[in-house]
């Protein structure tokens, strides 16, 4: 048995409750220090637009001063930083322009909870993770259906079938406004696909799948041959001997080209199926495996970089946005270190 990693499950139940309680107490202490933590500020920005009729009778809306006759006003709540809030309060205490947003503050705390809950899975499966998992499955399934509806079904299908209705309903900028006959094809395919929900459509339901698989088999064949075979082979047609600008023999560049050409050929040999990996093919395939391993090692190393950066980004969310421990971007104009110092000064 080789050295491995164990994964003993911790004592369930009490252990988890204890851990979450400890975290909750620590957060409560943090929230009580100085400026507190985890608040989100917003400011309502209202913009008025007035219609202008241009050429071809097309109406466009441009920004006008508030209160202009015939103007439509849109109000939006936009983020403000704690620093901006503090500045506004300093300028006029009790002002209402920049204020704390309850829904976004709750959202921030929820986001922090979810972040910790996902991390907790590393210690073992637990109720917080299960809850988070259930949420993310439901939300994301709904999310992508909504996106598919507004980004694909409406503009690519409905807008072609009933342009006037769609234009009046939700796509005022829709141009053309003609009924497109070819939109009936995907509609028909979709109906065939869904028809299998009825007992009659069991057989017809395969046709759209056959259509997708067939057409994309053709499409991908062409694109792979074009960009992957032709372009990659072309890029590998390198001179084995490189002569520098001054006519001298460039050792490194030549060596590099030789290695690339040999590497490509040997690695291709590894993928040979109908010949046993013996003799010349076997030796080449062996060298090919070395190249593959170096390729995988480098990809691994590079990916590690990416993953650590992502982890750092999550910690930054917890430390900067939620706990207000540090403030590298200067958004709040006050760090927890300063806060702690002022607290200690207050106490003494």
């Amino acid at each position, binding site marked *: 048995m*080789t050295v491995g990693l164990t994964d003993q499950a911790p004592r369930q139940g009490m252990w988890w409750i204890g851990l979450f309680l400890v975290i909750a107490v620590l957060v409560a202490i943090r929230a009580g220090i100085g400026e507190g933590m985890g608040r989100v500020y917003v400011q309502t920005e209202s913009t008025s637009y007035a219609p202008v009729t241009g050429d071809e009778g097309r109406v466009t809306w441009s920004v006008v001063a508030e209160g202009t006759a015939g103007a439509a006003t849109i109000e939006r709540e936009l983020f403000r930083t704690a620093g901006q809030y503090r500045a506004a309060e300093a300028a006029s205490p009790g002002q209402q322009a920049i204020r704390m947003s309850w829904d976004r503050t709750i959202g921030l705390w929820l986001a922090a909870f979810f972040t910790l809950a996902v991390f907790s899975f590393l210690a073992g499966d637990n109720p917080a993770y299960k809850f988070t998992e259930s949420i993310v499955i439901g939300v994301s399934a709904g999310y992508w259906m909504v996106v598919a509806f507004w980004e694909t079904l409406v503009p690519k299908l409905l807008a072609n079938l009933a342009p006037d209705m769609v234009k009046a309903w939700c796509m005022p900028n829709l141009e053309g406004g003609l009924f497109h006959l070819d939109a009936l094809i995907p509609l028909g395919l979709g109906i065939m696909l869904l028809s299998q929900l009825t007992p009659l459509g069991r057989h017809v339901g395969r046709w759209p799948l056959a259509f997708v698989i067939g057409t994309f088999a053709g499409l991908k064949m062409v694109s792979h041959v074009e960009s992957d075979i032709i372009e990659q082979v072309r890029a590998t047609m390198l001179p084995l001997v490189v002569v520098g600008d001054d006519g001298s023999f460039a050792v490194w560049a030549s060596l590099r080209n030789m290695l690339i050409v040999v590497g490509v050929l040997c690695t291709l040999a590894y993928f040979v199926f109908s010949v046993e990996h013996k003799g010349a093919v076997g030796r080449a395939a062996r060298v090919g495996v070395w190249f593959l391993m170096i390729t995988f090692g480098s990809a691994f190393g590079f990916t590690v970089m990416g993953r650590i950066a992502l982890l750092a980004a999550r910690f930054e969310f917890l430390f900067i946005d939620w706990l207000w421990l540090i403030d590298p971007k200067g958004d709040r104009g006050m760090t927890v270190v300063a806060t702690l110092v002022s607290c200690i000064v207050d106490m003494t």
Partner: protein
Amino acid sequence: MSRSVALLICLVGGLTMLVSPFLPMATGWANDVTDWFNILAAMAFVLGGGSLLKVQLMRLSARGPGWGYSAVTLLAFVVTLWVGLGKVGVVADPSAPTVAWSGKPDDEGSAFWWIYLYVMTPITSTLFAVLAFYVASAAFRAFRAKNLEATLLLATAFVILLGRTFAGVVLTGWLPDWASGLRLENLAVTIMDVFNTAGNRAIIIGIALGVASTGIRLMLGLDRSYLGGDA
């Protein structure tokens, strides 16, 4: 009968796409097909959503262990669909302030945006970040110098890890200029530029051949498992 029609559709569709790049009249076909596919995939959500609802409702009604989580999933799913399709809290788009439905569902301030920003993003990006931990345990467990191949993998990862941070500069920055190729950061570049390029090219070429061969098998109906049983 139904299977024969399906195979015919597959063959004709595939051949059409194979010849379309060479016919000037057919330049837009690939895009049309892609559009149709996207529409089909969007309509297929009815099937996926139906499956999700069915499975969760079955769990809920069976009251088996963890049925409460099924209720959470169902609730999250329905609420997200409702606020997204209904554009709850979406204000009109500046280009058409009088058309109430013109705003994008994920505009800042809408309910759908809130769900996206405060529920979906933190969970998915933390799951993504958790990979840093998995990378560590995988490296500890799997990177053993058992043989030459494993050692190459390990050594390469080593050089890249060192060469892509300040540690590389500290460790080998003292090397003189004539040996600068051996500095870790340059070694990392050489590995990427030479070995990784060669390895990846061969893999890519092989994949292209695999795609071509699979395509032919599908079009000719040699491989028809996706079509299901005889009927």
